[in-house]
């Protein structure tokens, strides 16, 4: 019994992506429906947290890849001298 056998199938990636995208679409619709009791004004913008979460992760990855990695990356035996 291995519930992850699904990922061996050839179109598993496609199905996963469809599930993810439809889930996010539902979330975006729900966002418009559910009333907010926001602490800050900008929290009331539709999908504020979606946009923030997406942008935050893209910025995180880009900074880590293009700024931090070139700066700190060394060979694995760097300290063994």
């Amino acid at each position: 019994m291995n519930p992850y056998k699904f990922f061996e199938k050839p179109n598993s990636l496609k199905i996963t992506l469809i599930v993810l995208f439809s889930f996010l679409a539902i979330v975006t619709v729900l966002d418009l429906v559910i009333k907010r009791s926001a602490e800050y004004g900008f929290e009331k913008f539709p999908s504020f947290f979606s946009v923030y979460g997406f942008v935050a992760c893209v910025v995180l990855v880009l900074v880590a890849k293009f700024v931090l990695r070139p700066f700190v990356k060394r060979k694995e035996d760097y300290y063994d001298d």
Partner: protein
Amino acid sequence: MTISFMPPFLIFLIGAFFALFLRGKVLKWWIIIVPALALVNAFILPKGFVYDIHFIGLDLVPIRIDQLSYVFGLIFCIISLLNSIYAYGLDDYRHHVAALLTEAAALGVVFAGDYFSLFFFWELKALSTSFLVAIGGREGSLKASFRYLLMHVTGGVFLLGGILLHFHQTGSIAFNYLGLTNLASLLILIGFGINAVFPLLHTWLTDAYPQASYAGTVVLSAFTTKSAVYTLARAFPGTEALIVVGVIMAAFPIFFAVIENDMRKVLSYSLINQVGFMVTGIGIGTELSLNGTVAHAFAHILYKALLFMSMGAVFKQTGKIKATELGGLFRTMPWTLTFCIVGAASISGVPLTSGFISKSMIVAASAHQGLTIVWFILLFASAGVFHHSGIKIPFFAFFSHDSGLRPKEAPFHMLLAMGIAAFLCIAIGVYPWALYSILPFPVHYVPYAPDHVMEMVELLGFSALAFTLLMLSGIYPPEMRAINLDFDWVYRRSLQLFMCFDRKVIVVFEDKIVNTAYEWLFLNPIMFFARFFKGVDTYVVDGTVNGSAKATYSVSKSLRKLQTGNLQDYMILFVIGILILACVIILLRGGI
């Protein structure tokens, strides 16, 4: 007052002592019985109990059980039992002794009511945990454990200095609210801060944790930083500097985690990120934020242990722990993967898991206090932690590219420990009031408000979208066999620089200047006098002795010829002598 319970640290101390002499199956059951007893004992601990003794002129309070110490004591006992179940298969008795000692020390710290007891257990913890690192059995374990010990001894010196100064100023060693007011409290804060992985002092954690054994890292992750969080919450709630420190800790490690190859190091960075939330909560200092900090520490100990356990299982079964060497393990380790996903969901704060109901209290507290920037950074850190611990850990270890590894599923006792931890993560998430009811302050916070659930689902859902799109487009930083420098570069290089300075400057200075001056000032005059007296000795004293000896020798040499040893020679000489004597007498008498 009669005592109806055992001091929790004493159970573990006794346990550790006997573990020294036990081996085999007996030891394996012993290490489970000890924390099990401690856990039962933890449930009957009377809140509000204080045990004080007067000793060498000090008012010692080795046991102080209040609401704050109780929560930490309880979770430490729970995680000790899980650690023991997880490590059941380990045959190394040294690990079990060190783990029990660490647990004793952590409980000692949590229940200590005075700085003297606190310091004693603080140092015991530093020793036992560095020993746990040292016996990790990896290539760099021993060196990392020395660096770890060096850091913690330094922290201990700061703490001791602060305690002595505090005692000198106030005459009290009671461990209570302190606040950042003077030098003494600053020193104590730094002492706690080294253990609480304050930024720039954090490198011991990411350096040492990946070097411990698969079970050792789980023990380390539960006790060191969290007992420091406890001490900060006790002594420095509402210290505003901690807000700044906390948000830095919450934000910077996630950048390192994204590009890190060693999976347990990724988890180490995310540990700093999570402790950052707790430190921020302490800094804010409201009832809500302190409740959030304590709840988050409780939840964190469980899910971080769960994540380290799952990566430990992967490490034990495959012998590999780097993202570049792993992948595709979902085929043979589905249970480990399932528990890993529960841990990953919990650390990310997915609704219905423990992280959701604890972390959100701290985030909400920052909003209530109007700390907008703090709130933004904490949200960023929440999205970030989902990104690297929530997705990266399960994805790179169990899916990603197929590494071709087909390890067996982890042994039953490891799955059991992970299963219990996973169950508790979900139980707290589904029924948060079980945890809320034991927090230091009454809880009015409602975690499952619809808009709040939506916030978190949106934040995490679209973080996942970002990950997916970056992966598919190939922008996501590829896994690489490399190490990433961190601030310990400064420590290591400055020490190397010092050694270089020592060789190139101090040694040369000593050699060229000090030695030369010594030669001129002392050695040369002494040599001059020595030579003078040697001359006197050679030419005067020896000359006299030798001269007289030579004279005697030459006289003896010429006299020696008289002594031929032949009787006839002596006879002739005798006759000649008689004749000469006769002639002389005749001559003197003037004729015969």
